[in-house]
């Protein structure tokens, strides 16, 4: 798209926003309902696009994208009026009669960049929040998922208000041109490298940003005595590695930490689970493109890393398929243990004691999520208090993403800004403080000239010392 085209789109959306149309409850509701219809009626189209872009099975597409969006839009519709209602805040009695409240208002025109791994989910989830908050939106889906990008470009204008919600397709050059325009908020999901570019561009206009990044999200696997618990735990780990998009997921398990003595049990259970889930490999997504395929193969090319492969390891550059692969104690300074893997390779790192996992994690950048499988209350408390991550989930994986009551986002290296549920609404709103006073009750000691007698009055005021204040006002106390 030409730069004039991008500028034109931005101007159009801004003019539309300034008409005030997107602020009404009616408009927001109509758009969310339209999104609901889109999600029901265009299901096949979404499955087809995701199959094309990532080889995603429709069950995966529903579980991880379509179904989640349906849940989110329903939740937003249910709560929209409540979220839009100003809330009263306490004011000191001294300020009587005064009314204080927090009034949420839209920020204005919002730019959303989404990533390629959940190209429909990660485009429409922030969109739901931005619409609920009353904004106009420009969405730029990732060009690395072209079928999904085209799907969105076609169906969003079909169902939603095409003057206020626009989809712009294109690559980095289009992204760059979009960043030159002035936005009221930018929401970015993707890599740290691009996030830096986005934030630097936003800084020129003082545009607030939210960046949803990734990192190396670990799973701490404590010893579990019950075989059934172990089975469930490992299924959940597999469910966070290969099951969603072949490991190309920001909240996936990047690597596992386990005590040396339990590693064999873990590995056996992993292999058994993989066999159960994948009798054939047609339920596995493929790698998004050649560039990422190369990146992943390079991670295991290093002989000192390749030597630690204990399961899988085969690659097919024709079909961009990489077999579920497990590594046992690859060198900690290898790239596979320093870069986010974002693929179907699972390193298992063994420790002398499971408590050492806390130090291990703390020595590294804060991840988007920490998973811990344990029944040990003491270990749980220590993990909660001593590690920092976007989210922390005990004894399961991935599922925190589906909780509308929990904020979703990173910290430190994994990003900043949180959304989902009401947090989405808040993220795309400005919470305006409004204080209303009347002309009754004037305290003349507020005003200059600052005669000496006024200071003691003010001290009483500031200490909320009503009794002394009253006495002073009545002239019964001086100095």
């Amino acid at each position, binding site marked *: 798209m030409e730069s004039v085209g991008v500028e034109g789109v931005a101007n159009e959306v801004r003019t539309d926003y300034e008409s*005030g149309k997107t602020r009404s409850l009616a408009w927001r509701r109509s758009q969310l309902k339209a999104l609901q219809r889109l999600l029901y009626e265009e299901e096949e189209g979404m499955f087809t696009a995701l199959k094309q872009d990532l080889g995603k*099975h*429709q*069950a995966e597409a*529903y*579980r991880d994208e379509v*179904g*989640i969006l349906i*849940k989110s839009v329903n939740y937003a519709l249910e709560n929209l009026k409540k979220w839009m209602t100003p809330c009263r*805040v*306490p*004011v000191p009695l001294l*300020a009587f009669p005064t009314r204080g409240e*927090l009034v949420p208002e839209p920020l204005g025109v919002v730019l959303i960049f989404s990533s390629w791994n959940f190209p429909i989910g990660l485009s429409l989830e922030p969109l739901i929040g931005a619409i609920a908050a009353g904004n106009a939106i420009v969405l730029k889906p990732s060009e690395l998922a072209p079928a999904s990008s085209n799907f969105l470009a076609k169906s969003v204008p079909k169902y939603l208000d095409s003057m206020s919600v626009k989809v712009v397709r294109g690559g980095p050059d289009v992204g760059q041109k979009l960043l030159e325009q002035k936005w009221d908020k930018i929401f970015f999901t993707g890599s740290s490298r691009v*996030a830096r570019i986005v*934030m*630097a561009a*936003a*800084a*020129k206009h*003082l545009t*607030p940003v939210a960046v949803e990044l990734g990192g190396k999200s670990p799973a701490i696997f404590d010893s579990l005595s*019950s075989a059934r*618990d172990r089975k*469930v735990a490992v*299924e959940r780990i597999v469910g966070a590695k290969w*099951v969603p998009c072949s490991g190309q997921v920001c909240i996936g398990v990047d690597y596992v930490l386990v005590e040396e003595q339990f590693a064999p049990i873990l590995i056996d259970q992993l292999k058994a689970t993989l066999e159960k*889930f994948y*009798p054939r490999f047609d*339920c*596995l997504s493929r790698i998004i493109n050649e560039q990422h395929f190369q990146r992943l193969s390079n991670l295991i090319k290093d002989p000192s890393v390749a030597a630690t492969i204990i399961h899988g390891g085969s690659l097919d550059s024709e079909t961009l398929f990489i077999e579920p692969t497990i590594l046992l104690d690859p060198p900690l300074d290898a790239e596979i243990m320093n870069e986010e893997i974002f693929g179907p390779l699972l390193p298992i790192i063994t420790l002398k004691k499971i408590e050492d996992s806390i130090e291990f994690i*703390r020595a590294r950048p804060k991840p988007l999520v920490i998973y811990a499988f344990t029944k040990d209350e003491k270990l749980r408390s220590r993990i909660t208090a*001593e590690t920092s991550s*976007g*989210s*922390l*989930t*005990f004894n*399961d994986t991935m*599922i*925190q993403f*589906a*909780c509308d*009551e929990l904020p979703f986002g990173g*910290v*430190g290296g994994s990003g*900043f800004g949180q959304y989902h549920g009401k947090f989405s609404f808040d993220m795309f709103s*400005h919470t*305006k*403080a*409004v*204080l209303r*006073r009347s*002309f009754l009750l004037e305290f003349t000691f*507020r005003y200059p*000239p*600052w005669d000496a007698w006024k*200071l003691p009055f*003010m001290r009483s005021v*500031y200490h909320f010392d009503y009794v002394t204040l009253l006495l002073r006002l009545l002239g019964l106390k001086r100095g």
Partner: protein
Amino acid sequence: MENPAEEEAVGVGFDGARAAVLVAGLRRGFASGRTRSYEWRAAQLKGIVRMIDDKEAEIMAALHDDLAKPHMESYLHEISLAKAACTFALKEMKRWMKPEKVPTSITTFPSSAEIVSEPVGVVLVISAWNYPFLLSIDPVIGAIAAGNAVALKPSEVAPATSSLFATILPKYTDNSCVKVVEGSIPETTALLEQKWDKIFYTGNGKVGRIVMTAAAKHLTPVALELGGKCPVLVDSNVNVKVATKRIAVGKWGCNNGQACVAPDYILTTKSFAPTLVDAMKKTLEKFYGKDPLESPDLSRIVNAKHFRRLTSLLDDEKVSGTIVYGGQQDEKHLKIAPTLLLDVPHDSLIMKEEIFGPLLPIITFNEVEDCLDFINSKAKPLAAYLFTKDKRLEERFVKTVSAGGMLINDTALHLANPHLPFGGVGESGIGAYHGKFSFDSFSHKKAVLSRGFGGEAPARYPPYTPQKQKILRGLINGSIIALLLAILGWPRG
């Protein structure tokens, strides 16, 4: 052994290497875990309260040095607000620190969830010159309450207050985790090159952009408390005496207009303007006498640079010709008297930039409607004020004007209420603080979800049979009925 506080406080030769050492020290302090306990946080806050009590006279003297700030203003607007922030945090902190339980849905049943507040880590606070005491200590109080280690860079444009901080803050707080760095652009640049977990900046938009650009290199979240042109819309149905007093105390009673929430300009109708101007003149004379330059109740302009900036706003004849009151200047003492201007040209510099001084333009329109349009044609300000008894106008104002905060029938007060978030929007800033908002601003809200090993749903996993897919749909949509039906094998086929 050299006193580390003195070493950093000197500011001479404070380059990137020294800044890196400072940050490393703070990181070590934070990593030790000491800042996280309630006891540590409370001890620091109590130390700050003691500092404010013990050093009240010195603080007022420094503010007088830097700004000729009247003692009453120093007390009202800096000292007591700082102390109130500390005592409020001390009172509420235990509650703020407690994890917040949140409900969970069928989708994750059985599970329990909570939101745990944790410190972000090591924080940089860069403060401004106009309320140099408050705007330094207030964010530091928030950072400490949230359990962080913090470095404070007070403004060099208020050197007496800056050096007072460097001397007294280390005496009342834990040096290993609370540091003061004095200096100007080179020192600030050195600090901004480091990696922080949050940067809190108070000042102007130009430097705000520099701070955010530097933060972008490390993807550090920022809070920017900036300014803007805070408009006051005055309707004709008001108690004009009270209105002008409240406007005047918010303008000239706040550092002689050098305040981010000070009324920048007034809007009113052509018919009401004469009444308003008259009342304002009377109020000003009552507050500051016939010779305002002699009044001890007016701050001076902070320095020669800002003095020239303000006087040059009046250079334009089309602007100076509209002065209806005041205009007196004393360059030697950097004093400018409260000055009213009636109907300056809309495109003059005084109407384009934040004035930040004792000049108050009054712009008139035929209708109140036009006033609202005028406000909305400009960048979103930090605060917007309306004086009216008309409820409908009040509602329209709240609905259609966007600003950081708003007051109806008063000015500036909202920043003293710890239950209201204080911050800007658009050009006037990013983020908010005060009260719990300070605590939140310097915290990460970690989502913690706990499940057991029961309640397993094989429907989540491959191989994906049609049966599983039906159950999945039920599960995700939280529909018990759909779930049961699916488990029972309905709908078939």
